[in-house]
């Protein structure tokens, strides 16, 4: 289920900023991005709850190998694969999206394992993600022009 677009400043050091700049990632600096809310209902498969996508990235990973990031020093969590007709695709998640928040937990400054854990908590049926992608930025820019 897609939610409204919203401006958001994620990241540990949040700073209020009232303009949306390009999604630039400067390590150590607060990040500003246009995000989309995506609510994914986990699907029960046997005794597991799955979301139907794969993530890559993390502060303990090599960011240079991320094929989806614009800035190759971006150590964020990216969606590397979306299972067709899985819960994530149905909810509107797309490959290449950068995950900023999961159920309120920040995902811009986490290790790969922490990210995975936050997505796969057994007691949660639904995860609400905030994701950003390049096309969102451009859509907003065009609508503002």
């Amino acid at each position, binding site marked *: 289920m897609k939610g409204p677009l919203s401006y958001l400043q994620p990241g540990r050091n949040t700073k209020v900023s009232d303009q949306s700049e390009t999604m630039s990632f400067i390590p150590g600096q607060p990040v500003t991005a246009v995000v989309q809310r995506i609510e994914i209902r986990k699907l029960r498969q046997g005794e597991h709850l799955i979301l139907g996508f794969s993530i890559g990235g993390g502060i303990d990973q090599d960011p*240079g190998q991320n094929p989806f990031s614009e800035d190759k020093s971006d150590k964020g969590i990216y969606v590397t694969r979306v299972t067709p007709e899985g819960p994530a695709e149905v909810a509107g998640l797309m490959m290449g999206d950068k995950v900023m928040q999961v159920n309120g937990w920040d995902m811009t400054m986490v290790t790969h394992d922490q990210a995975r854990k936050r997505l796969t908590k057994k007691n949660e049926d639904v995860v609400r993600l905030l994701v950003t992608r390049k096309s969102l930025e451009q859509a907003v820019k065009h609508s503002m022009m």
Partner: protein
Amino acid sequence: MASVNNSKNLRDSDIQKKIDHEIRMRDGACKLLAACSQRDQALEAAKSLLTCNTRIMAYMSELQRMKEAQVMQRVARRSDGTRSSDAGPMDDRLPCKGKVAISDLRIPLMWKDTEYFKNKGELHRCAVFCLLQVGGEIHDTDMVMVDRTLTDICFDNTIVFSEASPGFELRVELYSCCSEEDYSAGSAPRKLASKLSSSLGRSAGKKLRVAMDPGACSPTSNGGAVTLLLPGHAVAGPKYHLLAHTSLSLSHVQDSFRTHDLSISGNEDCSYWVPLYGSVCCRLAAQPHCMTQQMMSGCLKVKQLGGDPQSWTNVYGVLKGTNLFCYHRQEDMEANVEPAFTIAINKETRIRASEKDPHSKAQSICISNQYGGEEVTHTLSADSHEETHRWMEAFWQQFYDMSQWKQCCDDLMKIELPSPRKPALVTSKQGSLYHEIVIDTSDDISTVTDILTRRMQELELRSQLGTSPPWMSLFEESPGGPRTPRLARHSPRSPHRLPHSPLSPLRCPWPGLLSSDASLTSDSDSPCSTSPCSRHRGWAEPLSSPRFRPRTLSLDAKLSTLRGRGYGGVLQCSCQPPSSSSLGPIPAQCVPQATLSCSSSTSSNSSSEGSHSPSSLDGTPFSRPSSARRSLRNVRAKLDPRNWLQSQV
């Protein structure tokens, strides 16, 4: 008679030239196949080989048909004494040829949903491509790698056949080849295999040329003799198999995309199987020459019926497509000026020769069209009787062509010629450039080579087992310059191939270590991977025979029972060769590596899809996570420094 024979001989020699050309290409492809080391290259070479073979067979069957026709003619001539080549074809009207183009081929796939949600082992990949054939013209598309992340196989090529008759049959064949076979001919050493293929190529080519000689007997029509001569089976390397085929004809031509059924050969058990949905979508367009070329042109006098008998207009008429364009002067047409007026010549048009007009010398031609509700008739008159006759011929031919090409003559279909493409970056699916790592001369190179040498010495001690790590090929190569080692997607086979004896004492305490680490069990909520990954994704060629340890590592089994869960996605670890920084105390570490790699696979839920798990030996230090669980995390960090892990959630 001589001219007929001459033209036939010309065609013969044309085909022979084509066959010779294809044989040369074939030899080249065989050599390349024998020489190449990378899987992609081998697949491409095998594809060229298949295409060349198919072309050779097509040319040879055409040659066969021509020889048979010659023989038939000679027989017919002898029997009734008449020159049968004169009669017949002249009276029958032949339709014009045209261009047929097929583009935007898309073949939907139908993976089982169980495959989607699992991440079992590595991706089973197949290389596929299409062969398209109209008559003797055979084209192939580019090769596409197919794995279960694809929902459709898309071929971007536009293939144009320039001289197709309206009764054409476009045969589309989909070939596929599994991308993970061990290509070497069983246990035969590579050198011998390559010698065989190249030498057979040359001798077979000679045999083929002998067979081409008109004096010799021609190959059997079913190509049986041909397959004996063509050493396709003897060539080592990836082999493509026919997966599906279909035939398209004029009835399938349309100016938009259409879906056609595929006949599928093969089944799930074949290695080259790809689950096809059963149809193929494409755009099949045709441009008959009658629509694109000037079929007739000349000077005419035109009068509109009902007008003044004296009001003849002198025009230069051009019959093209569904129109007769009338220009004031011939120069106008060449200058692309708009015509004075246009008379439609289409399926609704009626043309007849009128009675002799008392005012003009020759017969006139009346062209009637319905414009709106009205019938408008134009009368054409040419300078001489022969001209009139030629124009009538041209109109009849046009009508005949339109009746043969049917819907292609309603409107001109667009055919976009394929633009010259830049060499495509094949790395799109493979991931980053880290796959091809060149160890250039830098300060670190000495460290790296020292480390590798030491490691090699260490492993040579175990060489009686015949194991050799992937990067041994670095040192096996001729001491020329530095080579580009393919360090992608390999697993350190050596740790897994270590004999059980030195390993077992180390493995036994391991489960104990893990079970005592309570934090570990609570950490990950997924079981260990089934195998220290990437086994199958190892080196393409340097190792003679893969000696895999059986998947049921007792360690894995123990850990899975510890976990007691079977997560939907079976994930694999990313085993890496030791990075430079961890290689310091090599002898001490090399043995425990196997166990450590197993543990890393259990602790981390990560699966490394091969495209993103290269290793780098460039010596740059990796970052160590400063997490609380030092022991395990450090170990994992040591082993997977450069891996870009991916996890399925």
